[in-house]
């Protein structure tokens, strides 16, 4: 046993409730040690442990609660006493007590130091001026956010990984941001020169200013004493209103130092392989510790390992921490950066294999020994292979080193998948979980729960997903055991035109006769709509039973906004609009008091319409020759265009006309997900066609068709399907492509993910839609011809029918009355939803219990 345990329930005092401290408590709880020990935790921060690694996600919407790592009842369930906001001030090792700032004295049998580290601030003049910050705690972020509200520029001192994160955060707060790095490249600790150059280019392209090879000499302040700029070592002065120091961290070893524990020459509480300090009653774990291998680890995974080691040691079990892997994969400013193993090629006789593409900002290097053993590597811009390469480190990979760095599609195909990894490969480095431990489970949630793999930085989740057996139940939802593609075939071949009939005949046993659910109703509504002419069903989405299947937006033919009001987006095919029509849009917005905004899709969105205003707004638009467009609905959205040959000196085809033709042809087409398109007049690609589900780029002799592109959260460049097509060939090919997608894709699967999943990929798609290998093309074309022939303007049609119009009232029992909760307040000369009304408990407190 590591520590003498004189009392029947020995007391453990833990100083520091950060990531590693919490992991230590969990490790004790898992081993039943919380029942046999009295545990007290002293926490300096005002809140229990949270996920510091994902601190920056606070700026993208995570709340401090989301970041919390401490389940609500954890302390209570395990009988642990947690003192927030009360740091330890002194340790008396003779008496074995700890005294906290509030003056309380805590006796211990075992003391655990998990005090983490503090940000190092270089001793430059002005460093404490208002406007100077560090980046370590939630409180730091709150302070930065508050200060940035009234400022327009910021600077980060330090271009390491934390510095880049901080810079991303400042830019996200709307500040013009610069980074000052003393070393000649960014992220000097992780990446080599080539990687640093790729990173620099990408970051500059994002609009950040980067100074490398210069130090900060002074923070310049203005009359009121707050930050106005910085003096750099090259003699220049740059202006900035806010400075974040991110020049490295130092272990918080002061308490240990003062109580006479050994500390390293350059800091860190010295511990042995069992994480014991020079006093056998005291452990140190995490970033404050100087490990037995002489290193201080500034990453969370080694800290967790130390927490486990100290917990095992407490129980007298054998476990050693002798050092850890420094591999990291990060997404900094949206750029993937990863380094693993011997990233700098420090091993004698090692060789590099490098792939570098400065256009796309991709840089990949692997380091191998002369025997071909993979030693490490650096990946910048595309770190997809990290999850595979890291576990392969230390072995001879099954493919050549070149294949490890070449992008997919270049050179020979890489037959390297997670299947090729040995059972002992560590897949999750945060929690040290091997492939074998992962494949013992059948689903990702189960893996997370039982092994903790994937619950740290999350970079291993992709590989974990690939290691899972394909889900046994591919069913669409709890009502249907069939996939969307299977249901499409059932509807088509059995000519089922009623959802209820389909549910009762093909639903899961328990679902038959019921009301279905919110997932399958719109999906099947969409399938029936896209096959309507063939089935002899009504194409109007609000007829009969169809009405009950539509998502709310489709039901009201407009997009619901956060306060229950709607937006209307008049269709503007190809983005081309006459001045008169522009004026009408302005007049409609003015007359109905709507907020207007130019969308990202070359249209104008009118926000804030109440349900009862919708038909009146459409009527005005229809009169002026518009139709209200789909900004909702899993249907065609917009076909963007560049101005093209007609005006542009470079244009080689009339891209506007083609965009209008395509938009009018495919409007109203119901699909598994929304569809977007664009047409560019030449290869300069001003319409961004390669980010669209189907994109068209003009060539001197016709059109190139690209498919499977996507913007959004997981962007994908489209693949070239066919070249130099005539107008007619282009349209025929798009017809086939779209109908094949509609027929075979899953619910909410964009063309990009569908194409990635499609067996045989682009080659197979080309075989089917270009070479007609399945003999389907005639049918696909005729389905599209039906769609085009039967297209109806849903909005105009709704206006014509008084029965249908009856739905557009706020209250069924008070048709003229407006909804008193849909209110607006002014902002920047327009309106925005009045959200305070919605936070009020409704009259008589009739509302929810939330």
């Amino acid at each position, binding site marked *: 046993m590591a520590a003498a345990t004189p009392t029947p329930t020995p007391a453990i005092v833990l100083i520091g409730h950060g990531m590693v401290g919490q992991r230590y408590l969990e490790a004790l709880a898992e081993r039943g040690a919380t029942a046999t020990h009295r545990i007290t935790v002293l926490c300096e921060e005002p809140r229990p442990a949270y996920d510091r690694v994902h601190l920056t996600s606070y700026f993208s919407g995570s709340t401090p609660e989301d970041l919390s790592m401490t389940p609500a009842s954890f302390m209570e369930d395990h009988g642990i006493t947690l003192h927030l906001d009360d740091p330890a001030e002194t340790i008396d090792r003779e008496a074995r007590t700890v005294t906290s700032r509030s003056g309380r004295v805590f006796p211990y049998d075992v003391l655990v130091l998990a005090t983490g580290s503090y940000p190092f601030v270089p001793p430059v003049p002005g460093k404490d001026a208002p406007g100077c910050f560090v980046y370590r705690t939630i409180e730091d972020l709150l302070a930065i956010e508050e200060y940035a509200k009234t400022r327009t520029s910021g600077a980060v001192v330090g271009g390491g990984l934390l510095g880049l994160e901080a810079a991303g955060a400042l830019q996200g707060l709307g500040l013009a941001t610069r980074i000052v790095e003393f070393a000649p490249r960014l992220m000097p600790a992780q990446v080599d020169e080539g990687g640093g150059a790729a990173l620099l280019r990408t970051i500059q392209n994002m609009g950040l200013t980067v100074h490398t090879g210069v130090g900060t000499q002074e923070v310049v302040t203005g009359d009121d004493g707050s930050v106005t700029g910085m003096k750099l070592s090259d003699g220049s002065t740059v202006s900035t209103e806010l400075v974040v120091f991110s020049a490295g961290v130092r272990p918080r070893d002061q308490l240990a130092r003062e109580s006479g524990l050994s500390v390293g020459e350059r800091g860190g509480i010295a511990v042995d392989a069992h994480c014991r300090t020079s006093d056998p009653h005291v452990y140190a774990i995490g970033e404050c510790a100087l490990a037995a291998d002489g290193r201080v680890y500034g990453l969370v995974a080694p800290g967790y390992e130390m927490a486990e080691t100290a917990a095992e040691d407490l129980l007298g079990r054998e476990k050693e921490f002798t050092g850890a892997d420094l591999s990291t994969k990060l997404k900094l400013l949206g750029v993937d950066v990863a380094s693993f193993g011997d990233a700098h090629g420090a091993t004698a006789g090692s060789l590099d294999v490098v792939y570098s593409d400065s256009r796309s900002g991709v840089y990949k290097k692997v380091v191998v020994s002369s025997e071909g053993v993979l030693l490490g590597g650096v990946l910048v811009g595309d770190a997809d292979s990290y999850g595979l390469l890291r576990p392969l480190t230390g072995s001879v990979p099954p493919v050549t080193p070149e294949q490890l760095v070449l992008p997919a599609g270049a050179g020979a195909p890489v037959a390297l998948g997670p299947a090729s990894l040995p059972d002992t490969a560590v897949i999750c480095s945060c929690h040290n979980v091997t492939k074998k431990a992962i494949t013992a489970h059948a689903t990702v949630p189960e893996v997370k729960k039982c092994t903790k793999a994937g619950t740290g930085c999350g970079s291993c989740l992709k590989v974990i997903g690939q290691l899972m057996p394909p889900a046994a139940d591919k069913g669409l939802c709890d009502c249907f055991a069939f996939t969307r593609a299977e249901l499409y075939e059932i509807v088509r071949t059995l000519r089922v035109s009623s959802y209820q009939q389909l549910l009762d005949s093909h639903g899961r046993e328990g*679902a038959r006769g019921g*009301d*279905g659910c919110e997932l399958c109703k719109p999906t099947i509504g969409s399938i029936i709509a896209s096959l309507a002419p063939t089935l002899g069903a009504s194409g109007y989405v609000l007829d009969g039973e169809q009405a009950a299947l539509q998502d709310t937006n489709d039901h009201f033919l407009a997009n619901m906004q*956060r306060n229950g009001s709607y937006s209307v987006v008049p269709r503007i095919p190809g983005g081309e609009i006459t001045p008169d029509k522009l004026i009408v849009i302005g007049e409609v917005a003015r007359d109905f008091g709507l907020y207007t905004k130019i969308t990202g899709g070359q249209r104008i969105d009118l926000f804030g319409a109440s349900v009862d205003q919708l038909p009146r707004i459409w009527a005005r638009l229809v009169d002026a020759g518009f139709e209200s467009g789909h900004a909702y609905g899993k249907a065609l959205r917009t076909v963007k265009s560049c101005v093209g040959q007609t005006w542009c000196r470079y244009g080689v085809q009339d891209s506007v006309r083609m965009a209008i033709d395509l938009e009018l042809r495919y409007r109203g087409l119901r699909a598994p997900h929304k569809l977007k398109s664009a047409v560019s007049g030449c290869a300069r690609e001003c319409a961004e066609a390669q980010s669209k589900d189907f994109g068209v780029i003009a060539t001197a002799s016709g059109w190139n068709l690209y498919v499977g592109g996507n913007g959004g959260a997981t962007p994908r460049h489209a693949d070239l399907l066919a070249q130099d097509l005539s107008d007619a060939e282009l349209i025929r090919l798009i017809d086939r492509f779209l109908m094949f997608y509609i027929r075979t894709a899953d619910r909410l699967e964009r063309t990009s993910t569908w194409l990635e999943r499609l067996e045989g990929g682009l080659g197979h798609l080309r075989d089917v839609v270009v070479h007609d290998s399945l003999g389907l093309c005639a049918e696909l074309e005729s389905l599209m011809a039906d769609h085009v022939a039967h297209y109806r303007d849903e909005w105009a049609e709704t206006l014509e029918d008084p029965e249908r119009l009856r739905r557009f009232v706020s209250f069924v029992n008070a048709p003229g009355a407006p909804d008193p909760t849909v209110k607006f307040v002014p902002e920047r000369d327009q309106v925005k939803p009045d*959200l305070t009304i*919605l936070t009020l408990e409704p009259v008589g407190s009739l509302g929810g219990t939330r």
Partner: protein
Amino acid sequence: MTVELQVDEGWLTVCELSELVPGRGVAALLPDGSQAAVFLDRKGRPYAITNRDPFTGAYVLSRGLLGTAEGRTFVASPLLKQRFDLETGRCLDDEEVAVRTYPVRTAATSV
């Protein structure tokens, strides 16, 4: 047939049964200024809950889609898709949340 809702003042006629589409809902304004969402399921059974979505505060539950989960009829909020049991008002996706329900009945139309 009319659809009636029980409020403090007694039974309130909301609309004709024929105005309800099975699987969907309508909103009704109550005498105290609050709002109810009234639904009809596939079997023709009416339900009523408050119209306010407790997750967003918006008065939109009447515009959600109905469904059945484990034999219970629910409505999915059109905003963030949380589901509410129409009989008990309990949120099926967050056990700490519930919405108020109202007794509801159909009655022969009084002339």
